[in-house]
């Protein structure tokens, strides 16, 4: 993948070696993947399609949990998660690219290193600390809320919109980190060549810039989508049950004081999440291959 996403090395690796030796080298990776992803996935799939009767201890196969995970509030939470992830990935992706482009094309090396370091830190600043930082700043009794009277303006941190803003806080820096190397790879000569051939800036981006960046942009979008989709702690600390999200629903079903016997539905929801992530990847991979083709 890296050979296709980074145009600088794209030219050099055309000749592919395929043989038993290369397979051997991937064996540790495959074993690791098989163990660390395969076993939990298998256990999850098994739990999602079986049911153990508490009294007799007999286990039987059933589609009941998967069916329930696609109905009513569970379906609502899946849709809510997809909506939130798609929206935040899109907004975060666009803003991230704009910021990264500004940083990359600026002549100041200081700004560049400062922006990239800050992005590295902020992209990993998620979870409960982030939620509390926001609560203290723009929550109901937050400092800024009190000073600027945000409540009167209709601001509500504990809502879908509020959650979107909080997610963007770590998604935009993540996009900057991911896309900056690709923007570096857009060689100035290409732009100069386009300009001397009479292309406008718009034409340059339309026919050269965006096609070259497309694989990285798509990759960034998928990464952002996945990060937002799997996020749990921030949302749990911030909105609790008031914005339906699938990760929160799984936590409710696994660990609660009210509903009993929901563990298998939680596993089924986990399986649904993997399927959705798989679908996103399935759309991304062929597109990426297509747009990467002419880079070689």
């Amino acid at each position, binding site marked *: 993948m890296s050979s296709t996403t980074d145009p600088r090395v794209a030219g050099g690796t055309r000749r592919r070696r395929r043989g038993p030796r290369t397979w051997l080298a991937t064996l540790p990776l495959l074993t690791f993947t098989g163990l660390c992803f395969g076993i939990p996935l298998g256990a999850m799939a098994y739990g999602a399609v079986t049911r153990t009767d*508490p*009294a007799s201890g007999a286990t039987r196969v059933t589609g009941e949990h998967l069916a329930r995970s696609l109905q*009513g*509030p569970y379906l*609502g*939470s899946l849709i809510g998660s997809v909506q939130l992830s798609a929206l935040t990935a899109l907004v975060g992706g666009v803003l991230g690219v704009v910021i990264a482009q500004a940083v990359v094309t600026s002549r100041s090396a200081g700004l560049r290193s400062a922006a990239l370091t800050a992005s590295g830190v902020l992209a990993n600043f998620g979870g409960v600390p982030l939620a509390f930082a926001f*609560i203290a700043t723009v*929550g*109901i*009794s937050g400092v800024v809320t009190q000073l600027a009277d945000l*409540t009167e303006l209709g601001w509500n941190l*504990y*809502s879908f919109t509020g959650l979107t803003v909080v997610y963007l806080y770590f998604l935009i820096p993540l996009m900057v980190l991911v896309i900056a190397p690709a923007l570096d790879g857009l060689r100035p000569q290409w732009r100069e060549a386009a300009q001397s051939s009479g292309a406008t800036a718009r034409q340059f981006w339309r026919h050269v810039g965006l096609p070259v960046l497309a694989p990285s942009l798509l990759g960034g979008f998928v990464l952002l989508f996945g990060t937002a989709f799997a996020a749990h702690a921030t949302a749990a600390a911030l*909105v*609790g*049950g*008031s*914005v*339906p999200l699938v990760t929160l629903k799984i*936590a*409710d079903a*696994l*660990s*609660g*004081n*009210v*509903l*009993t*016997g929901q*563990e298998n539905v939680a596993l089924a929801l986990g399986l649904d999440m993997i399927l959705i992530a798989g679908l996103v990847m399935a759309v991304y991979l062929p597109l990426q291959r297509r747009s990467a083709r002419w880079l070689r």
Partner: protein
Amino acid sequence: MLSSSARRGAAVLLSAAVLTTLSACGAAPDQKSGGADGAKNGVQPGAATSVADFGSLEALAAAAQKEGELNVIALPPDWANYGEIIKAFEAKYKIKVNSENPDASSSDEIAAVKSRKGQKRAPDVLDLGIAFARSGAAENLFAPYKVTAWDKIPAAQKDADGRWTNDYGGYVSIGCDAARIPTCPQTFADLLKPEYKGKVALNGNPTKSGSAFGGVYAAALANKGSFADIQPGIDFFGQLKKSGNFIPVESTPATVEKGETPISIDWDYLNAGYADQFKGKGVDWKVAVPTDGVYAQYYSQAINKEAPNPAAARLWLEFLYSAEGQNLWLKGYARPVLLPGMTQDGTADQAAVAKLPQVQGTPTFPASEELDKAKATLAEKWDKALS
């Protein structure tokens, strides 16, 4: 290797058993088989169903001290005075209490029982939400045990076989910071008033938190609902959300102290505890049990069937259901299950009783089926009503 040594071990055990039975036949007064464990009548501590199986409370205490430890789970020290209860038990019986994961939920407790079967770290005793007490009993996870005070516990508050027994509970109440709210709401109907815009919180998500669930149930009772019909309660919170009064922040001691949740629906013992905790910190926390929606709920005590410290587990229960244990809960503003009887015979701590929020009448409880139905309705409808 392992299986062969295990087989050898089994053979040794078997022959030993044969030998002891043979020799027992000869001896006239049967040597009690559980002699080393201090149980009388040949009953192992793990099979004892009442203190009589040990002979006396002293014998039980001796057996428990031999074990020396007690594993508890999901007992927050600032919840219903559990911190002091654990300390009092340790001091009285010289038994070390290992408190694991104080903030765990009922389903975490059940999961710990299941996943640590046969391990020394398994929890001995459980403090469960009623639904989990019932489902755990159905799954045969608990040891039946009837404490000395068994007969004084109302029939509706215990399992007939003694697999679980209600321990303490409280009423759904409305806590309110009088320093920020000019007039505190007294009823559910009050909460709809426009003056409480952006002020009313629940202490959790009712599909997950038992107390928040109680809040919705009480709201249902206040709005012409019943134990069988929780829908009016869901509608009430939907209305509260629409009017902008409801805030989705889940109230905790932290949000109460910061003034983020100036009105919080929660158990009366927690709300009353906050009043003490935040006195002098700019929070004047008042507690009212709403007269239009009176709902009480009790937690239940159960012993892990495969408790690693079976005698200590039983001693813990005897301690909790003694006047001393019950008064300690009372001190934490929780209403212990034996309170009515203790008020009559004068063993209740009068000062603590006087500090409880006032409630008229005696509590009633939903039947198992009603509770299940209410939960199913809530799980189905809550998200939609609130979004």
